[in-house]
């Protein structure tokens, strides 16, 4: 009951955010210098042709009206025609989004697993060499930008050590599995096509590692610190005092109470992976929405830009909602509603 109302609030709020976002993005996209129609049609297109496109894109209308038409389209899933690929943006996005999804999910899994693992290790063996090692590592890891990692991998595995594929989602030899979810690994598994699965999996490794490297270590640090912080809590002393064994305290009481801050931060980082993907996909030539986004941005394809940003914004918001739900489920104080709203 209380949870539902909390969720409702949260939902309302995020709808508002996306809406506000759409305005910001629209404004950004529309201040692009130069006549987008002309840009799209190239220099030699006769004036009347350009005029036609302008009308098709409502560029001759005042801004508010343009926005109205645009948002109307967006709500009906129509982002207009990409000036870059000359196709419906929605089609492009449908095509490219799963690729990014797959990459981010994979990276996310890596991130969460290793972060928690390292974090717990470091906390458990606080101030021992294990802890120091992990912490020093994490200081490095955090500072490695995804695109630098990507480039270095590319350099290493692309030319000096060609053991892992560095390009695209599948080797040229292998035909992509029939599209069900659009995630190659998943589809190929569903279809029982293990060759394709293995290939797709190999292609995933480098990009997702490059993507998750930074956040992974950041997480590890947060996990550690939040566990260490809880270690000094009186209830832990109490539980010790009551004679509850260390392992139970460690993996039951300490872990769950430390999980909550972890989850919320991890959610943010998970969403942030989408933006990091912008550069990684460029480097690894990964046909995802982020690469598409970068291309349309660099080519000033305003329909593309606004579509990609709004979509990613929405994803970002949705991820955040999900995280909030998880936190709520973990933390009774929120679930049973004694905390102050959002």
């Amino acid at each position, binding site marked *: 009951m209380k949870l539902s109302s909390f969720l409702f609030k949260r939902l309302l709020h995020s709808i508002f955010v996306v809406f506000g976002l759409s305005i910001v993005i629209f404004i950004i996209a529309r201040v692009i210098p130069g006549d987008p129609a002309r840009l799209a049609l190239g220099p030699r297109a006769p004036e009347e042709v350009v005029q036609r496109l302008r009308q098709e894109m409502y560029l001759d209308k005042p801004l508010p009206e343009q926005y109205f038409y645009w948002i109307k389209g967006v709500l009906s899933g129509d982002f207009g025609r990409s000036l870059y690929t000359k196709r419906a943006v929605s089609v492009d996005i449908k*095509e490219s989004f799963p690729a990014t999804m797959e990459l981010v999910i994979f990276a996310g899994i890596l991130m969460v697993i290793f972060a928690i693992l390292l974090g717990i290790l470091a906390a458990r063996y606080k101030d021992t060499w294990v802890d120091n090692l992990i912490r020093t590592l994490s200081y490095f890891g955090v500072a490695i930008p995804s695109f630098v990692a990507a480039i270095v991998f590319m350099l290493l595995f692309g030319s000096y050590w060609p053991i892992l594929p560095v390009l695209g989602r599948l080797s040229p030899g292998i035909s992509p599995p029939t599209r069900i979810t659009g995630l190659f690994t998943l589809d190929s598994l569903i279809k029982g096509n293990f060759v394709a699965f293995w290939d797709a999996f190999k292609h995933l490794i480098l990009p997702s590692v490059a993507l998750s490297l930074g956040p992974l270590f950041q997480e590890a640090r947060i996990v550690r610190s939040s566990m260490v912080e809880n270690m000094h809590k009186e209830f832990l002393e109490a539980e010790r005092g009551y004679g509850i064994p260390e392992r139970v305290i460690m993996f039951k009481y300490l872990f769950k109470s430390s999980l909550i801050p972890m989850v919320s931060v991890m959610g943010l980082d998970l969403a942030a992976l989408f933006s990091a993907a912008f550069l990684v996909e460029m480097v690894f030539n990964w046909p995802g929405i982020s690469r598409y986004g970068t291309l349309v941005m660099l080519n000033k394809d305003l329909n593309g830009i606004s579509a990609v940003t709004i979509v990613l914004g929405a994803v970002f918001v949705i991820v955040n909602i999900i995280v909030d739900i998880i936190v709520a489920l973990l933390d009774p104080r929120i679930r049973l509603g004694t905390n102050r709203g959002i």
Partner: protein
Amino acid sequence: MDIWTASKNRRSIRKFTDDPVENKVLKNLILEVGKEGIMRDLSDREKSKKSNNLRRKVMKTSKFVRFLRNGLFLVLVASLVLNLVGCRQQTPTVAEVKVIRNTTSWPCYIDPAVGSDGTSTLILCNMYDTLVFPNVDGSVKPWLAKSWEISADGLTYTFDLVQGVKFHNGDELTAEDVAFSLQRILTIGQGYGYLFTTSVKEVKALDTHKVQITLKQPFGPFLGELVRLYIVNKKQVMANLQPGSYGEFKDYGMGWLATNDAGSGPYKIKELNTMAYLVMEKFGDFWAGWENKDAPQYVKEIGTVEPATVRTLMSLGELEITDDCQSVENLATLGKLPNVDVSSHFEGLVVNIELNTKKAPTDDIHFRKALAYLTDYEKILANFILGSHRSGPVGPATPGSDPNLTLYTFDMAKAEAELKQSRYYGKLNQYPVELGISADVSDQEKVGLIIQANANKLGIKVNVVKLPWISIVAALAKPETTPNAILIADAPSYAEAGSLLQARYTSKSCGTWEQGEWLQNPEIDAMVADALATIDQKARFQKYYAIQEKLVELCPTIWLMECAVKRAYRSDYVVYPAADPANVNPVTGYNMYYRDYKVFPEKAQKPYTPFVP
């Protein structure tokens, strides 16, 4: 010590070679040093002390390799596992098909009425047919049109079509289709439409195999232009109309043709991933037949020119021919790969620095000349694209370019002299020169820097600005936003000087990316118009020469070079026609006419990754 490590390293090399992974290591070590490097080093064993630097290089790389081996032990283990499993699946499942895989800039627009960039052009050439076909000397030969007659006033052209030409879907190609295609491109006006919107008045099908085109005014190179008129299947297009704003023609099939083909060319579309690649398949009953039995069964256009990518594909044997926009360094590296050669030919692609004649300080002719003199052409040629050569307003490879034209040469003294005459001399620092270069081509930066360095010596401040292509297009739309100087490569649309001259220097083309000069010189306009209206080729060419001389004295442009089109390709099993100067076709795209290619997969040396359709 030196010898010791070298020999040690040799031993290690011999040790490697049985192990698959290590083998790769060795290979890469070889690419790193350049194979002849190692070979020499190996043979030199007894007469040592020689080629020290080489050995040092080997040593260094081997050190690097060793570092990799130690530092990345885990990776190695992982890789072994992966490879083992990998190998099991990599054994070619199908008979090695004849295939050409070719990297190219992206995206491509495969609608004949939309695409006009390099990639689109080469695809269109292969998927669609034209009335006439370009010869290597730039003239045209009958193709879909087995003959034609031109009225005395040079206004009406009547074409007689070949019978029994089949579209990819089996329909017969008729005059209707020709008329429709021309009408369509005229209406849509994108792509190569501009060629015809200026010249064509109307088109009508006289009967099933006779089509008549009427021009607005006499136009000499019209036949040449027709190599850009791709004939689409009217029935098929009309059957696939989507809602659009072209009245009865709805969207004129643009939606459908964006991802499908309605052509009759030697290759038909198989699979198009608009973000990544295009696969074309040989069209079995192509009307002109397949006397070339070794032509590729499949062609894959891979949508990337990213050096690392290209190099990796090549070194894994997943690529037959590269794109033509690789940097000097990368071409050198590619050339060192086993069985890879770098071919070089000219297609009339000229690289110019367009000077804005409507903006200080480049509005002063002396200033422009100063810039032209202080440009170190030799250095640029040596470092931009090797094997290129100097060129005037029109590239020597293009029919109609003036063979004896006197060009500006690198001469700082002259440059200074010109500068002294310019009205900006003495207040140069108030007039910095903005030099725009395309962010997409890495090598362009070099050119910019070379000029910047020299200009600096004369006190001219040059700011190099890297712009994404689209921003360049936007900037050149108005004289005030056009930078003082902008580095742009341009190629003739059809094989004649007139094409470039019209597109580059007539007032009509001001505001397009093709003219950053804003020349707006009525004299030139008149001369060009007159030349183009001349039917007789000889006379026409003479007029072209005159225009080019006139331009040189106006100096609106720093004509750098005609760019060699360089592609790295697998010489062991691919016959790449353009590699032989005799077959080089001056019309852009026709050197990628895959019908003439020969592929022998069985001859392929390792590394070779067969293509599985």
